[in-house]
């Protein structure tokens, strides 16, 4: 055991019915290091971290924290010990404001009741300082002024750019994650576990987050990052532990490894990072937007006059920081959100403000950003979910009747074609039981195999493992080849660059920049995603000038 070992997990074993999620896993963490935890979906990373965070209890094994053996029964114990976790699926209460979400479980009594040393003596302060009143206050009042200041301070310090009074349901996925990170920081943790923290961040924001994490680590905070992104591991971690099939494959010093080495450790074979993109003659226009205006849930304009056209066999990449109108734009393109002005034409048909059904019937497919909320019915079988967009087809029965045998056969085709794992019976296994990557494959299979004219894919590879990302990207290119026009909304610039024929940048509901992967400048795009230079008129920077110095 190292001298500077801070946290040590020893011989952790955890089984679920039919699966060994962690098989005798040991790992140790040094104080003040950033430790990467790498592995494919289902390798047991999340389980291991949930054990460390007290969400699961291990069947076997010990956890030592700062020289003491931990007996954790709940996350509350973990938090009390000084362990914080930011989950992949956010644990926020949508109706409550950012600050209320953050103080949940660690409330302060209202300001009136806070003890003030040496303040003026009065009936009121005598009253509020009694133990009974303090006890009542700590349980039944909620002071937000002080926490709010502290939260705002933290938010500003780390450049999170959050309105702490806004209710969480109004926030985009990226913003929600920042709230989660803030929540942990607010609790003064000593060990922070981040489950795929950068999945929703832009490269610039990710860099900023890494700087923040580095600063925290220098102050002695220990950070564990679960991730699939090898370049990030290289960039930010000190050491990496790789899990495969529930076993610890090894812990290595990051700077001694190449991304290829890590990928090999993770997958057990070599992974191709380069994608071959054939040149394709793009066809006729499948999507045409003119001066589209869309409002968000709050009734505030989220998309302000977007013009866009996508041709058959073309991938248009839409880059932008989450919360700049992508969600609203995507929803309006598939007919689940009304527009306030402008028009949407799919092929040559005007479908503005038509119901979602019309969009589907005209060959629009959609991969939603939040696959559990909008992409599937988690409690229904894979079969129910597989036919969700096609159950009206005559292939599945005449008139009112629905042919379940045909549906089952079709679902099996999807599962086979897209290599969806974890389904032995499409009628028995529910969508909610699938891992993130496999559920995403099922959704993509459903959306792609109906031969859409237009595919709107919002963050299609978010939160899935390298193997699945590779597969999904290949399928997107295959779909492009077969003549589908694709709008790829992503915050992952690499993905946008690798796949797109054209790149658009969205900022505050407007397309602020258009380029192609060949002539694009990453720094320029990153800058535009964050609002760019306000004074610079768009036209004058169209040609790729000396921007890279900025």
């Amino acid at each position, binding site marked *: 055991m190292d001298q500077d070992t801070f946290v040590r997990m020893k011989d952790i074993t955890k089984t679920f019915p039919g699966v060994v999620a962690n098989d005798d896993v040991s790992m140790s963490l040094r104080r003040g290091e950033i430790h990467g935890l790498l592995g494919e979906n289902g390798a047991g990373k999340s389980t291991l971290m949930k054990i460390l965070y007290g969400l699961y209890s291990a069947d076997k094994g010990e956890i030592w924290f700062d020289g003491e053996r931990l007996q954790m*029964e709940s996350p509350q114990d973990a938090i009390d010990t000084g362990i914080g976790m930011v989950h992949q699926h956010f644990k926020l209460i949508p109706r409550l404001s950012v600050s209320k979400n953050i103080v949940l479980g660690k409330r302060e009594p209202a300001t009136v009741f806070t003890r003030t040393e040496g303040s003026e003596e009065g009936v009121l302060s005598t009253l509020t300082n009694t133990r009974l009143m303090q006890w009542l206050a700590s349980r039944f009042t909620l002071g937000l002024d002080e926490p709010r200041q502290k939260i705002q301070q933290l938010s500003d310090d780390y450049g999170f750019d959050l309105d702490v009074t806004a209710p969480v349901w109004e926030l985009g996925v990226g913003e929600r994650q920042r709230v989660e990170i803030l929540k942990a920081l607010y609790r003064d943790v000593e060990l922070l576990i981040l489950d795929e923290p950068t999945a929703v961040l832009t490269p610039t924001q990710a860099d900023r987050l890494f700087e923040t994490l580095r600063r925290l680590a220098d102050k002695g905070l220990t950070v564990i990052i679960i991730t699939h992104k090898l370049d990030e591991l290289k960039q930010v971690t000190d050491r990496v532990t790789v899990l495969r099939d529930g076993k610890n494959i090894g812990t290595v010093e990051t700077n001694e490894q190449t991304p290829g080495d890590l990928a090999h450790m993770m997958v057990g074979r070599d992974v191709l990072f380069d994608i071959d993109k054939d040149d394709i003659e793009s066809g006729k226009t499948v999507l045409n937007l003119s001066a589209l205006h869309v409002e968000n849930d709050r009734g505030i304009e989220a998309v302000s006059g977007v013009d866009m056209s996508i041709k058959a066999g073309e991938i248009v990449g839409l880059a932008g920081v989450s919360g700049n109108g992508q969600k609203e734009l995507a929803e309006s393109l598939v007919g689940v959100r009304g527009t306030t002005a402008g028009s949407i034409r799919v092929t040559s048909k005007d479908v503005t403000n038509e119901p979602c059904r019309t969009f589907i019937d005209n060959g629009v497919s959609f991969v939603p950003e939040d696959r559990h909320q*909008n992409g599937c019915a988690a409690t*229904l079988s894979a079969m129910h979910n597989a036919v*969700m967009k096609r159950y009206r087809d005559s292939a599945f029965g005449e008139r*009112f009747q*629905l042919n379940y045998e045909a549906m089952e056969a079709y679902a099996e085709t999807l599962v086979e074609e897209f290599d969806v794992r974890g389904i032995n019976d499409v009628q028995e296994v529910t969508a909610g039981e699938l891992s993130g990557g496999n559920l995403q494959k099922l959704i993509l299979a459903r959306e792609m195999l109906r031969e859409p004219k237009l595919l709107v894919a919002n963050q299609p590879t978010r939160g899935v493992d390298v193997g699945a990302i590779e597969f999904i990207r290949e399928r997107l290119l295959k779909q492009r080849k077969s003549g589908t026009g694709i709008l790829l909304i992503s915050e992952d610039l690499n993905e946008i660059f690798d796949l797109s024929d054209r790149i658009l940048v969205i900022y505050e509901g407007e397309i602020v920049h258009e380029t192609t992967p060949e002539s694009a400048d990453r720094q320029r795009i990153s800058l535009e995603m964050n609002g760019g230079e306000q004074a610079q008129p768009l036209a004058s920077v169209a040609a790729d000038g000396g921007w890279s110095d900025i």
Partner: protein
Amino acid sequence: MELNIELTPRTDIPNWLIYLTPVFTVVAALFVSGIALIALGVNPLQAYNTMFIQTVTTPFGITNTLEKGVPLIFAGLAVYLPLKAKLWNIGAEGQLVVGAIVGTAIGLQVSLPIYALLPLMIVAGGAAGAAWIAIPALLRAKYGINEIITTLLFVFVAQSLLNYVVRGPLRASGANFPQSESLPAAATLPGIPRLGDVPLGLLLAIALVVVTYGIINYTRLGYEITFIGANDSAAEYAGMSKLKVYLIVLMAGGAMAGFAGVSELSGVQGRLRASFDPGYGFTAVPIALLGRNGAFKVMLAALLFAVIFVGGSSIETVFGVPSAITSVIEALIILFLITAEFFKQYRIDVSIDGSYSTSASGSPEGDL
């Protein structure tokens, strides 16, 4: 001694638990009611023998059970169908009452031969039930206004309406009680041949169970209902019309409650009284909950409650216990049902003095 109780959400629910839960629910409820019976000086085993065994083995008991079962099956379906789309029709009682009022009015006012009058009464009663839920349905489907509250409030309106019509427009001339004239023979549901007094409504109820089962399991509409019930947001992305499905399930539910009213009136009671209905529409809620996994299970649950009703009145007469005991048993079954649901979702580990019991102690029997 320190007692630790640890709750863990179950990742999957074992099969034996699914099948054992309803059985356990009933057994546990009877066990606790047994205490009440002992307190009243009655041997619970004898009481349960009369209540259950006698009820389901004697011709009189069976006839009575089926008779009570008919409105319960209809009303159970009235709650079950919207529940499939995750809507709560708490107001089946109101739709049932309105169906009975309209059925009686037609039975008394219209003179037609029986083969025309009865179908007319049933259809009109169903339509009245559907109309009664139309406003809550529309409010829910279009504006998302909570149907639990609106359907429930409409019950009180329906009951007031009933009180009015039996004292006003439909009051029998010269009667001292608030009740209508007896329905003429042409408006009375005949019994099923060879089954004594079991009203023909039973056949209609069984037919509706089959139809409901078929709709849920073999049609596009059923797929939409199931899907919307599972995730209404994803359903919208699938191009399903929530408006359409919500209106259909709620109004179909209302119609079924209306049928319950007509069949009870025309098959059993024969005349409208201010208190003709012992709350079938409310009993329908636990029936639909017990049988929520399928229309046939709703039917079984309805018959179980019919047995409790009939058996309850037998022990009242045989042992002289208050009628409230039936309500106690019914309430306990519901209570245990909800508790059992919790045990299905969570695994419970109980340990004493910090020594964990590692056995599969998620079984409800072990923990209660």
